[in-house]
């Protein structure tokens, strides 16, 4: 019997045992689900968001089909790069709902594209989990960025706002240096900012457009990681926002989908390279999410009202629904997860 057979046999035996004679033990939850009651040891509450014993549950039972807006959405279009504050409905980045529990106490994080969308949800969540956060965004996104800076500061954490275009390697290096100076170090790098612009045919896709997408989505994460590495201590984490497009490309996202496939391999390969240095690297692969990327050319304007309708949950994801994933991947709690791709596409498989 080889190992494979043994494995199969033991699984069958286990299943048989369970069905033949069910052995069970019931465990009562502690009344205030904190060991020794109260806050995690040695970590003071950082803000009013921190739940104490007896507060309402962090996440009540909710039907994921029904908790957020469904298509059809109003027709809308914005010039690139778009503002969350101008979207109808406004995306939910967890501004009023995300409650932290010190899972990232004392960490220092840099999030590109942290002004809106998934990056904003991650930035808000990181701050409420106790991290100081630097966000990068384009100068035109200043109104969204100001809101995020306020939210980070309301959490009692340090916020550093660094506008600039990631297509410049010099800016990427300066971004990391400015974040490190402003935060006093760096433990978490989230390469999240992306360029996405739907183009129907290859003939219409210009070299400049192709270059814009690749510079922002593929080169910038490389430049940022390279610059950040000297500052990352063992226990640090790098997270890259990929996309379900890496596996199921839309015909009009020919360039974007390729960059997202590159992001997946960025995580897988760099995870292997950095494991001996104690640094984890993971990717998140979202499906359709309600973010400014979609309303300023990421989707054809006429298709936007139906955005997310085809997902099994019948709606697009809201950025806040990915916040816990970024927190978990950034946290030391997921210390054995590296080189992984976490999908979130509303019921469709990722690959």
């Amino acid at each position, binding site marked *: 019997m080889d190992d494979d057979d043994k494995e199969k046999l*033991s699984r069958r*035996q*286990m299943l048989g*045992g*369970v069905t033949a004679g*069910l*052995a*069970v*033990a*019931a*465990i*009562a*939850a*502690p*009344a*205030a*689900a*904190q*060991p*020794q*009651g109260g806050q*995690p*040891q040695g970590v003071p509450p950082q803000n009013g968001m921190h*739940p104490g*014993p007896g*507060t*309402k*549950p*962090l*996440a009540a*039972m909710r039907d994921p089909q029904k908790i957020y807006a469904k298509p059809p959405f109003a027709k809308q279009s914005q010039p690139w790069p778009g503002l969350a504050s101008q979207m109808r409905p406004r995306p939910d980045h967890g501004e009023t709902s995300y409650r932290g*529990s010190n899972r990232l106490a004392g960490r220092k994080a840099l999030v590109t594209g942290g002004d809106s969308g998934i990056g904003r949800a991650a930035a808000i969540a990181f701050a409420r989990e106790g991290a100081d956060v630097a966000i990068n965004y384009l100068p035109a996104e200043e109104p969204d960025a100001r809101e995020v800076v306020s939210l980070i500061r309301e959490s009692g954490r340090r916020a550093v706002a660094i506008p600039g275009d990631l297509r410049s390697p010099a800016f990427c290096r300066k971004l990391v240096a400015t974040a490190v100076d402003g935060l006093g170090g760096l433990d978490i790098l989230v390469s999240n900012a992306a360029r996405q612009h739907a183009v129907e045919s290859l003939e219409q896709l210009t070299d400049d457009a192709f270059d814009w997408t690749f510079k922002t989505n593929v080169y910038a994460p490389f430049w940022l990681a390279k610059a950040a590495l000297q500052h990352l201590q063992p226990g640090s984490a790098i997270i890259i926002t990929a996309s379900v497009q890496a596996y199921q490309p839309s015909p009009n996202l020919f360039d974007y989908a390729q960059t997202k496939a590159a992001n997946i391999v960025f995580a897988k390969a760099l995870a292997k390279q950095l494991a001996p240095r104690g640094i984890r690297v993971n990717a998140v692969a979202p499906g359709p999410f309600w973010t400014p990327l979609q309303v300023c050319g990421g989707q054809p304007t006429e298709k936007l009202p139906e955005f997310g309708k085809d997902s099994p949950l019948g709606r697009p994801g809201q950025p806040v629904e990915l916040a816990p994933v970024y927190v978990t991947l950034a946290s030391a709690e997921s210390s054995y997860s590296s080189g992984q791709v976490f999908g979130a596409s509303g019921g469709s498989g990722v690959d």
Partner: protein
Amino acid sequence: MDLAIAAKMQPPQQQSPPGVTSAMQPKPDHGERSYVGCRKLAGKTAVITGGDSGIGRAIAIAFSREGADVLISYLDEHDDARAVSVEHNEEHDHG
């Protein structure tokens, strides 16, 4: 614990299936002392097969510290199962 030291303390070993946690060297870490919950699963009820040991045990401990009531199923590893159960009863007493 330093990983190099842990490797030295991981001698060749063999148990007959399904195996018990208490006989393992080193003892696996299921978060017994480290996992801190924050009511993310308050009021939920959960069933976990293989909840006496290994990954299922870590899930059972984490779920209950997040506020869930937990039912675990297992084969005949009653000592492991009792350990998971006791973990939470003690916690309940202190809480």
